């Protein structure tokens, strides 16, 4: 165990690099002192860790909650190590014997991703020196992700408009026609096999009932979800166009 002075010295030697989190800080302490990660001197590390956090506080830096949780974890491990070892005759205690294991596991995993991170940094650097033609504007392929998000609202407002347009026809629907969503899915797919694409409005013939509209709409949502169809909107407030998604075969089926 180190004396307080050396700890303080150590802490102040750190030129306060920013750490991404408690694991980052711990790895730094471990590397800095060439500690064997498989045999961490917990007392020592805990004290240094806490000293660092106090330093951050003294400097009025925000100490994220996660740092404090780790301080508690370290203290807890430390206290467990001080407890007498369980009876060695009774070794069927699971592997979690050493209270440090869980922490070491996390540290090692995190360490790997620090490596992968520096790999990506190198790639970024390298790629940064290669120029290609800049996309003229947000191209369609880029927009795909957005379509899922933004057009959901557009879809809903189109749906809303449609419902409003049929007004009070719902009063006649007493005989419970079983209109299934599956049926409507088939209807849409069938329509799309004849036309490359169609407008949202065209899915709903003039004389449809309220229930049919709802079922068709749900069918459409389902088809979008399982990626059998795509929707796009050529311009803001323009018609929503529905078309088959050629290169997907709906992997997310359940």
């Amino acid at each position, binding site marked *: 165990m180190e004396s307080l002075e050396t700890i303080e010295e150590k802490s102040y030697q750190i030129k306060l690099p920013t750490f991404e989190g408690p*694991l*980052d800080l711990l790895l730094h302490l471990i590397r800095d002192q060439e500690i064997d990660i498989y045999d961490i001197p917990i007392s020592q590390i805990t004290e240094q860790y806490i000293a660092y956090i106090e330093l951050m506080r003294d400097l009025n830096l925000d100490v994220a909650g*996660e740092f404090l949780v780790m301080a508690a974890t370290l203290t807890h491990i430390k206290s467990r190590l001080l407890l007498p070892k369980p009876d060695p005759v009774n070794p069927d205690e699971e592997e979690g014997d050493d209270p440090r294991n869980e922490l070491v*596991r996390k540290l090692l995993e995190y360490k790997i*991703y620090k490596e992968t991170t520096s790999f*990506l940094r190198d790639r970024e650097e*390298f790629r940064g020196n290669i*120029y*290609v033609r800049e996309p003229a504007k947000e*191209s369609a392929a880029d927009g795909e992700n957005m379509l899922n998000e933004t057009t959901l609202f557009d879809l809903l407002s189109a749906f809303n408009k449609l419902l409003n347009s049929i007004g009070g026809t719902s009063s006649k629907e007493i005989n419970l026609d079983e209109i299934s969503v599956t049926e409507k899915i088939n209807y849409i797919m069938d329509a799309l096999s004849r036309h490359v694409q169609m407008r949202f409005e065209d899915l709903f013939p003039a004389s449809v009932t309220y229930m049919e509209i709802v079922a068709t709409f749900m069918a459409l949502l389902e088809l979008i979800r399982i990626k059998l169809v795509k929707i796009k909107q050529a311009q803001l407030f323009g018609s929503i166009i529905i078309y088959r998604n050629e290169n997907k075969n709906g992997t997310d089926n359940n």
Partner: protein
Amino acid sequence: MELTTTKAIIENILLVSDRPVTPDKIIETLEGAIDADTFKNIMDELMHEYKQRGIQIIEIAMGYQLATRPKYADWIGRFINIDRKTKLSKAALEVLSIIAYRQPITRIEIDTIRGVDSGGVVKSLIDKKLIRGMGRKKVIGKPMMFGTSRRFLEYFGLRNLADLPTIEEFREKEENINTSEENDGEPRRKSGQLFAEQQQVEPDDEMEDEEELLTTEETTTEEDI
């Protein structure tokens, strides 16, 4: 169609395209005049010819693209007057690399690995389109799972995800450096393949390979959800 003509057409397409041109797209454009193998041969030839040229053809994001050469970067930068010095933050890269290797992965799972909240970073990566939603995990709360996008490959100049070194390569490098005694080997085990069992949503081919590599070495999984 003569091969030289085909080659010329492809070259022209590369010139006008502002995105990596995929084999599928070319073959489709040429209405099946060539098959994938022929295409590959033509591209190899073209790339070879471009070795003599000031510009190059790069393989990137599952396609091909005309590109400048790194050694002229300063000149190009001066010409187009764009500051390329804006790099991703350390946190962003960290989250991105975790997602790259563990996709599809939820935000909570990322947080667990990093030991710190990643919400803001994930959000900004979505805005930058470097990651994308990959459906929802079938657990309580149905959290969104994330994976890398095509833009990710473009940004880092990767042909596909298989271009990333495997986790094992990193680990071996680590172990070579770390000559200390083995302990009982317990902590060395790759942690948390908690989602190995979950189904892939929209798997890219390479992604699947990657996923396999990541999971096969796992023997036992701790119940540490």
